């Protein structure tokens, strides 16, 4: 039988979290630096980047499916480090790698190049957790994946919605 069905046909859709509005910055001083790691609110900068990414299977954003939450992102601006932990909707989700790839591409495009990006599946939420993690953080494999036109099309489609 050809498995044309979706891997998770009926995902639970959560409400989008109300976006926090950052208090309008005062431009009194032209030269003050607003560091990427300012207080906890900076997380949002990143969240705004990645939480709009569309799910590869469904017309919902990763946030709506709770694949990504605000707390699952760690940022350290001083050490130029970011770690994203995402939770696939079902344990055997074969889309996990694609989601991870989308996250990586999005962050690569949105962060200064000095950043090191780690993308992980939340522990215990995926059948082949170790394999997925390894695949996502192997830069050779990521580069190879991005050579594959089908994959890149898929990634672009997922990312396309974020600024549509």
């Amino acid at each position, binding site marked *: 039988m050809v498995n044309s069905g979706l891997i998770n046909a009926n995902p639970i859709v959560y409400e989008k979290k109300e976006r926090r509005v*950052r208090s309008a910055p005062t431009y009194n001083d032209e*030269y003050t*630096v*607003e560091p990427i790691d300012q207080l906890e609110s900076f997380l949002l900068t990143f969240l705004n980047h990645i939480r709009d990414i569309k799910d590869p299977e469904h017309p919902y954003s990763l946030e709506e499916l709770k694949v990504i939450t605000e707390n699952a992102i760690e940022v350290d601006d001083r050490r130029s480090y970011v770690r994203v932990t995402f939770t696939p909707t079902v344990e055997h989700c074969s889309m996990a790698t694609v989601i991870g790839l989308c996250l990586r591409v999005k962050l690569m*495009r949105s962060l200064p190049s000095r950043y090191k990006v780690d993308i992980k599946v939340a522990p215990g939420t995926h059948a082949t957790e170790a394999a997925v993690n390894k695949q996502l953080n192997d830069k050779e494999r990521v580069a190879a994946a991005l050579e594959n036109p089908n994959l890149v099309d898929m990634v672009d489609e997922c990312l396309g919605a974020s600024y549509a």
Partner: protein
Amino acid sequence: MAEPSELTRHIESFVDSSRSQAQQAASLDAIVHLVKNDALFIGHLVKEMEMYLTTTDNIIRARGILLLGEVLTRLSSKPLDMANIHSLIRFFTERLADWRALRGAVVGCLALMRRKSGGTVTCSDAKAVVKSFLQNLQVQSLGQHDRKLCFELLECLLECYPKAVVSLGDDLVYGICEAIDGEKDPHCLVLTFHIVEVLVQLFPDPCGPIASFAGDLFSILGCYFPIHFTYPNTEDVDMKRDDLSRALMLAFSATPLFEPFAMRLLLEKLSSSLPTAKVDSLIYLGDCILKYGAERIEKHAGAIWSSLKEALYDSEEDPKLQLTSESRDGGNQIAREALSLLEKIIIQYDDMFLTLITHDEQINMILNNTTNYTSYDEIPMQSKKELLMVGRILYVSTKASISSCNVVFQSFFPRMMETMGLPVEIASESCNSDGNCAVRELHFGCFYICMELLVACRDLILVAEDTKKQFIPTTESYFCLLKQFSTSLSKIFSSILNRSINEADHDVFVHLGVKGLQTLATLPGGYGLILKSTFDNILLRLMSIIISDFGKTLLWKLALKALVHIGSFLHGCDDSEKILSYMDIVTEKIVSLLSSDDFSMPFSLKMEAVSVIGKSGLHYMMKITVKLEDIILIKLSECMIQGNLESAKIVLHILECYSKELLPWIQKNEGFEEVLLHLVVRIWNQVDNCRSLDVDTGGKDLLEAVIKVMKFAVAYCSVENQNIIVDKAYRILLSNPSLQLKGSLLTIHMKGFISTLEVDKLSSRDEWILSLLASVVIALRAQTLIPNLTTFVRLFMITMLEGYTIAAQALSSLVNKLDLMPNGALEEAMDIIFSRNFWGSYETSPERTGRMSHGNEIDLPNFLLGAAHSELLLNHAISGLAWIAKGLLMRGHDRVKDLTMIFLKCLLSEDRMDSFSLNEGSLENSSQQFASTSVMKCAADAFQIIMSDSGICLNRQFYATIRPLYKQRFFSTMMPIFQSLIIQSGSSLSRAMLHRAFAHIICDTPLLAILDSAKRLIPMVLDALTSLSKDVSDKDVLYSLLLIFSGVLTDKNGHEAIVENTSKIINSLIALSAYPHMMLVRETAIQCLAAMSELPHARIYPMRIQVLQAIVKALDDPKRAVRQEAVRCQHAWASIASRSLHF
């Protein structure tokens, strides 16, 4: 006669169903045209068409009959003879039986029946049509369009031939029932509703055919109620739910015979849970009740009353919100409709319903219960809602008519007073301490009900006076009751405000108290209802809140609002006695607030209070301005003569309030000229009187504030009064020796002048006189005469060189407004300004004289040389000349060219300098720059002064002469000059300055003009961007230029120019995206880059790597906004970039 063949051709074309619609319409037009112009008789046409009308081919016959019908429709105003009409209508009547060719027959009948003149259908023919219709037509089995036509025919028959149709009696009614039963199309429904409406009115007889069919007819109509309209096609705007609903309502109320059915249905639907059903029932009830007559309604009165109460009760939302809201229209639609229905009923059948209301057990119970609670918060939610409902009911029933007002007052008002324990006080002058009359306990409910009654009563009197121009006799019982209690009511309302009420109740009680006082104070009819002392006490109470309770925001705001309301009410009804009290108590006190030394109350609140009260009526504003004038002058003299700093602070505040709040309002109203003139003259006198003016601290601010007010006040005055002011100013100027001396100077003795420039500043008093004089001149109308122009111009010229910008502005206003023709005043002024003597006389060394002789213009190089000792002087001269140039440019005077050339020479002076110093070794030393950087900058900024709009002078408010499109003109003359100068310019400094000047011009030119010459400009703009980005001090100019550029970039008219310069643009945008000194510049540059990604792929593809590299850097920008833009831009460009580029 038309060619038969041609006619046949047209007929053929229409009948042939394979032709396009346009062709068919064209042939129809052609035939109609022939008939209209008498080239073809209708009889002839019918004969010609015989074959088509009688053929057995259904399609062709249908088309043929339709053609005849359509032709007749178009000929509605062409006279036809009776025989023709008769035979035609006979034909169509017969054809109604032919179901295959029905449409043409209906169209034809309709066309003939609708004829108003030039031959109409006879009654007997009409009757035949109806008969045939009833016999042959199965309307509901037809298509939508045919049904619509049939209904139109029916409607037309009923409306135009009532006699013919009435004789058919039962058959007709039965036939119509059959035809309309089950109709669903909204367009047809509107027609059917109307048909029923007309039909039932044809048979008013209670024993006639309608009486027997009323039940059937209503059951057909009733199932449409309430209209549930979900028409999917929203483009179909010509049909709305309201139209349908209205048509149905008219059908419902068309005959009293429907009463038993309609009332039952409506009352039933009123109790449904569907909001639209409730609203519709209420609206329908309102209409039906008016038309069915008292006898029939009486049966239902009880039921209507209880459903109304229920609807009102259910519809109440948050009671607290309702209590504290401003408007009465608040609440939802159900409540509004219910109340308007109640009002209609009471006006129509007052006795019947008023008894119901006054004897209603529920109302009485609710009112009795109110005494159980003293605080608002204690009352359970349900009781709150009930109370609110009673309040509304009483309000509406009181307001409905005078008799109803009497009834309601008599039955409820004394009871409330008794509950509150209020004594009757008619002449209560003796009992004026609040303590005596204050009640021991607050009963919220009583207050609320009293307030509703009061407001209703006031509204009733107002409406009566407004619409019928009648005064309500003072003998009415409610009037006496109100009069008896008004004083004690006012006391109790103000005592509510005194009490310290707990948090939960506070808002509600404050609203009630203030509103109660406001209502009492706005009772119409002089001192009839309310004693003068009571009225005064109310105003005093509110004023005391304004003065002392500014800490309690809500109370203060409400009190102020109430005062404003009272003020504008009195102003509106022109109650002169009360206005006098108001003036004494409110306006006087409010003004004295401003002048008081008490700074505990925030100034902003004082200002707000004064301005809103002033704005509530002309009288008040007048009073306030007169009072303020006195205060301003007293305080001015205090601070000028005694150097009282406190007074300076106060007067500064008052002036600020004057110019910010009062003057803009005064400007829109007339009648203040006298006051303002007086103010101006008194300020001048004040300045004149104090011989040694000593304003040190805050002196500049004070002067600025006075200047602002002065300009405004002078601008408001007419030409005659302006003449008075100018004369006054001139006389004071003459009495001042040092200024007068300057005015009489013919030349500047440069050396001496420069040496004195720093030392011999104007004295404080002279500065005041000069500034005031300048502000007067700025605000003058063009027609105002200036007594001694020469003196004025000279004085301003000299002071302008001393660095008083306001003098330059005054000069520019002069040259802008002076008349060209009558006495050559403008020429005179220009002569002085440009006079060689004036500028040339600095000359000290005789060998320079030779170069002075070319023409009667400012010999600038010499002047520059002479003035080289003092950059400051040069800067003053240049910016002053820039103002003059602006004045000239705005009126379109030629001399502006000379001035522009001077500025350009300054900009280029460094270039010249090289050649100059080679030729003339005699220069004192080479370090003595011909024109220093600061002078060049000043010259560049001169263009900003010339181009930008100024709020200070030379605008519409100050009567500037403005030539249309002057900016565009200047722009298009200057651009080629700048283009060539920039190319020729040798030194980088000059070029930078030229770019700066160029940017100033571009920034203030309308975008449309720039777009026209975008192709030429883009390279220059790019160069300017690059050059401006080098100096930190240019960042604002840089930003405005970048904004203009982004405007060109995003406009499709600028597209071509952008495409041509793609790579250059991208390079300079990339450079700007790293501009360190201004975040907005970086942000805008990156936005522009993102917009560039929309350009043709081939153009931008080569640039992608550069752009992406630049954006990667921007992703690490210190500012968040820039980073966000960078991500957006990155996204836009990443899709262009090839996949192998993993940025």
